[in-house]
């Protein structure tokens, strides 16, 4: 059955079951995914996953609970499963305490989008990847296929988002253990674009063959490529949450409290258009929001629960209050000038395994990984062995942020925990006057 029809069939079967004093929301997530792992430029493991999950929430006045269930895609069986979930909820909800922070969006909003992609048969793509990797030590994953998200409520809300996409996320390893990471993601597979990206990775691999440098801990000038800045923004993604800011859990709490500052070069928006995430969450339609304005704190991401608890106004953020498609404004650094403006220091292609050294102080730690080079007098000199940084965002993205690249790059997530991750981050590269390495 077509996914949209399946979703509507579920709604059609659910509505008549509801009693007059009951309300519901139904969240729907499905995907039909190809997963192909590669090691040494051959297929290590391959398979397909067809999964459909729905989360039914039942509301009885201010009492509510939810039930997540897997579905089969066949109408009769799924109707029975949904009915069973409803009965389970009915057995629990009346005895719950009223929820003082329930402020459900009961507007009858609608949002619908479909972004069909064009992808060749997976065996064709496998052949292209294996051929392109011939003679190379290629390792990575190809993930592709359609994904569907739906949301509906008994108060007339209806959201639907369908998109087909692919994501090849791969590394080329040099015999010395150094590696360069690449990705090709989108909705319309183009063999020549993939070939160009592979050629670019091969070119970088040649630099990695030079003897690697081991740096001493200390302060260095550094350039963070967009993929490296993406790791930092990923760790900071909870920073704008209204709940995190109110409960001492945000690493940007000192920024929002006015006791710490970020560089005026930083402007960050949560932007729906072009973001590849649905234009709605379970809280309703999303909104474009300015999270950082010239280094100053902007909007918080406020879900309805936080709005009720802390006296704020909800702004369409999902229950987790994370940005789904943030866009950082570019600066005045041309791509061709990165090495000359860096002059002498580190070119960091990626960062890895970030965490907090001191969260309230915005202090982070993490590792360099993939294509990190030592640069002298504006010229690449040698790859650098893995180094640990430990520094505060209020320093390296504060007074020590010198420039951002002119053209931000859109990065699509390769994450697949439970399901293929949607959304995107659009980021420039960042030139830093000081970045502290510790190990």
């Amino acid at each position, binding site marked *: 059955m077509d996914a949209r029809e399946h979703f509507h069939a579920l709604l059609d079967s659910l509505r008549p079951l509801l009693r007059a004093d009951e309300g519901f929301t139904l969240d729907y997530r499905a995907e039909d995914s190809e997963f192909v792992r590669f090691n040494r430029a*051959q297929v290590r493991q391959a398979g397909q996953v067809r999964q459909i999950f729905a989360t039914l929430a039942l509301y009885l006045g201010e009492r509510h609970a939810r039930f*997540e269930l897997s579905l089969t895609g066949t109408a009769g069986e799924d109707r029975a499963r949904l009915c069973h979930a409803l009965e389970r909820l009915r057995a629990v909800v009346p005895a719950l305490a009223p929820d003082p922070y329930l402020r459900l969006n009961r507007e009858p909003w609608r949002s619908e989008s479909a972004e069909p992609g064009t992808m060749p048969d997976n065996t064709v793509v496998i052949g292209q990847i294996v051929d392109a990797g011939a003679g190379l030590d290629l390792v990575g994953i190809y993930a592709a296929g359609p994904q569907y998200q739906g949301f509906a409520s008994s108060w007339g809300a209806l959201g639907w988002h369908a998109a087909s996409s692919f994501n090849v*996320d791969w590394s080329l390893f040099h015999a010395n253990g150094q590696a360069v990471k690449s990705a090709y993601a989108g909705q319309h597979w183009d063999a020549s674009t993939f070939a160009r990206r592979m050629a670019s990775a091969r070119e970088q691999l040649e630099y990695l063959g030079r003897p690697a440098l081991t740096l001493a801990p200390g302060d260095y000038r550094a350039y963070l490529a967009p993929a490296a800045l993406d790791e930092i923004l990923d760790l900071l993604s909870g920073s704008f949450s209204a709940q995190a800011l109110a*409960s001492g859990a945000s690493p940007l709490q000192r920024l929002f409290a006015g006791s710490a500052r970020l560089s005026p070069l930083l402007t960050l928006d949560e932007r729906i258009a072009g973001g590849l995430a649905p234009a709605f969450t379970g809280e309703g339609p999303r909104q474009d929001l300015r999270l950082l304005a010239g280094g100053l704190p902007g909007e918080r991401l406020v879900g309805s629960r936080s709005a009720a608890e802390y006296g704020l106004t909800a702004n369409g953020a999902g229950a987790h209050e994370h940005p789904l498609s943030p866009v950082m404004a570019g600066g005045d650094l041309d791509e061709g000038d990165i090495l000359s403006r860096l002059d002498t220091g580190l070119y960091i292609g990626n960062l890895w395994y970030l965490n*907090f*050294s001191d969260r309230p102080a915005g202090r982070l730690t993490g590792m360099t990984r993939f294509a990190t080079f030592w640069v002298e007098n504006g010229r690449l000199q040698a790859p650098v062995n*893995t180094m*640990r940084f430990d520094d505060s965002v209020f320093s390296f993205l504060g007074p020590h942020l010198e420039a951002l690249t002119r053209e931000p790059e859109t990065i699509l997530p390769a994450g697949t925990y439970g399901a293929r991750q949607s959304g995107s981050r659009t980021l420039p590269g960042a030139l830093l006057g000081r970045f502290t390495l510790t190990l």
Partner: protein
Amino acid sequence: MFESASELSHHFAALRSRADFWSLRHVRELGEHYRVRRSVALPPAFGDDSGAMLTARIAGVEAYAATSDLTQAGLQAALERAEHLARALAGHALLEVRELPVPTGAADDVAPGYERPLDGPAHWFEVLGAESTRVPRDARLVDWSAGLGVHCVEQIYLNSAGACLRRAQRFVYPALSVTASDGHDSQTRSLGGFNFGQQGGAEVVDRLGLVGAAPRIADEALQLLLAPNTPSGPLDLLLMPDQMVLQIHESIGHPLELDRILGDERNYAGTSFVRLEDFGRYQYGSPLLDVTFDPGRPEELASYRHDDDGTPAQREYLIRRGILQRPLGGALSQLRSGLPGVANSRACSWNRAPIDRMANLNVEPGDRSLAQLIGGIERGILMSTNRSWSIDDARNKFQFGCEWGQLIENGELKGVVKNPNYRGISAHFWRNLAAVGDASTVEVLGTPYCGKGEPNQAVRVGHASPACVFKNIDVFGGAA
């Protein structure tokens, strides 16, 4: 229990295939989550997830297809997709698995107490609500939470060689945390949560000591808010079990995963500083270090009789008297490497394929009481309860942080310090192991969030450990 077993067996017997070998792994997971935050009960969440992975082996090439459609037609279609893919991979496959042995036995592996019912939502909301209200009223206590997660998982493995392996387990995750903030700094103290989970029932909540703990946890959060930062410099380091689990996990567990050493994970989770030729000879730690793969401790998260490929599981030493013995590698990795391994081929659910994972990975107890461990330190620091972890892709250079620090001077515990962090290199760190706590210091802990694999998988792993002392470690605090 195993409600769908009969129907599933019937469907499996009726599958038609031209594959040389095929298997079905069905997983059903029921979940329930209760949480009280700032003395307000959050809406409970329940779950019922079931599906199956079909695997086909044709001319030495394997492929899989997973589906939540468990009808005869749904399973048949999935098997045909797996077969089609296995044929399409001919000529592109890295591995030839014709020689990989297939399980043939039948066994039921039902965790002790599995069939004993747990109390329902009303009981747990009462317990958690009471604990939440025990947090003292203090404007600096800005957030607190008490929660409980319960997951019942049943798995049925069937294959064309006649195997029928069934497993039923219940996992319990109690948690309590309190955050204190003065508007500038924030400190959180927790009990349980992401580093504590066990198999069992209500007794797991008792073992954690959740009931009645809130005033102490709140007081410790306030102590941390007022405490000085951890000093910087080399100190002797006493790690309590709720930090040892993280240290074991990141700097012994992951580096010993054989698929990492064989290169499968280099694009995501990473590689390892350990080489194939190191097994049997490498000095991983001091002679005090004994590490086991132990699937037999009933309450530990990853206790089982067979792994997800059907290999029988048994206790093995991975490190003995400091010398590396064998890797964490399942049957396939053993075939690829020629090394002995363990039964650790595991998947997070029906929609992900088994790969080499940690399971129960334990440091064996030594002979020192906690008082003796503290008494043997002239200038050092005790660290407890992991809160931050970061390690390089070869699992060597690490930096870890804890919630709670307490200085040790001349064999005695002294003042509390906040933001206790330390850093080191795995290849050297374990050689600094200077004292190992006895059985009285051992705690059985674990996490449901061990991430790895492409596509990504988060699995449950168990770690039991005593408290341990490490000499001369680089320790430091937070921002001034």
